[in-house]
């Protein structure tokens, strides 16, 4: 069965600094990988997803993520963080197992300081 680990419960970065959120997955084959963001009081919104092809994926709001099969990782990056990026970020892995299943990680809360 697939699983997702987000090692960092919370991260604090300064506005304008770069950001990297870590995600490791466990799955035997090539998984479908997603990053979602959840702002306070709102539902989850898809930032980007990876199914196949180029391992560097561009998403919305200036985010990108890189799939590294050798490390079973799908880390999310942004070169310059804005205060509005403060939110909870969820990595998710999907695979076909008696139907398509999506498993979410526990999330990383991002704090942005001025």
């Amino acid at each position, binding site marked *: 069965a697939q699983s*997702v680990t987000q090692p960092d*419960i919370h991260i604090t970065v300064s506005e304008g600094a770069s950001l990297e959120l870590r995600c490791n997955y466990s799955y035997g084959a090539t998984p*479908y990988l997603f990053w*979602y963001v959840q702002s306070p*009081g*709102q*539902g*989850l*919104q*898809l930032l980007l*997803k990876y*199914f196949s092809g180029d391992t560097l994926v561009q998403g919305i709001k200036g985010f990108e993520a890189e799939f590294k099969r050798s490390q079973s990782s799908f880390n999310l990056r942004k070169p310059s963080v804005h205060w509005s990026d403060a939110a909870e970020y*969820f990595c998710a892995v*999907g695979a076909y197992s008696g*139907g*398509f*299943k*999506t*498993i*979410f*990680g*526990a*999330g990383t809360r991002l704090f942005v300081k001025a």
Partner: protein
Amino acid sequence: DAMVIQNPRYQVTQFGKPVTLSCSQTLNHNVMYWYQQKSSQAPKLLFHYYDKDFNNEADTPDNFQSRRPNTSFCFLDIRSPGLGDAAMYLCATSLTSGRDTQYFGPGTRLTVL
């Protein structure tokens, strides 16, 4: 324009008193999902509908039921809420499968007294 709407946003119920949460969508998507999200935890899938086909997760308690009377609406019924059922309940939709982007509603925060 809201695409996935959940009502109410906040629901307070008493221990053991049945409660129904509502979700509607304007996307005309085939798949609708219900997730339970407890504080500082990952969203956990309870069940989903592919059109009218109901798919229950193996570890979803029998206390949780769902109805989808038409494409646009889906309901989550909790027959006898316990204190452990207090959580955020998220509704989501996708076009045809989990590979497609899931669109989430803002959630209903359930408090059990």
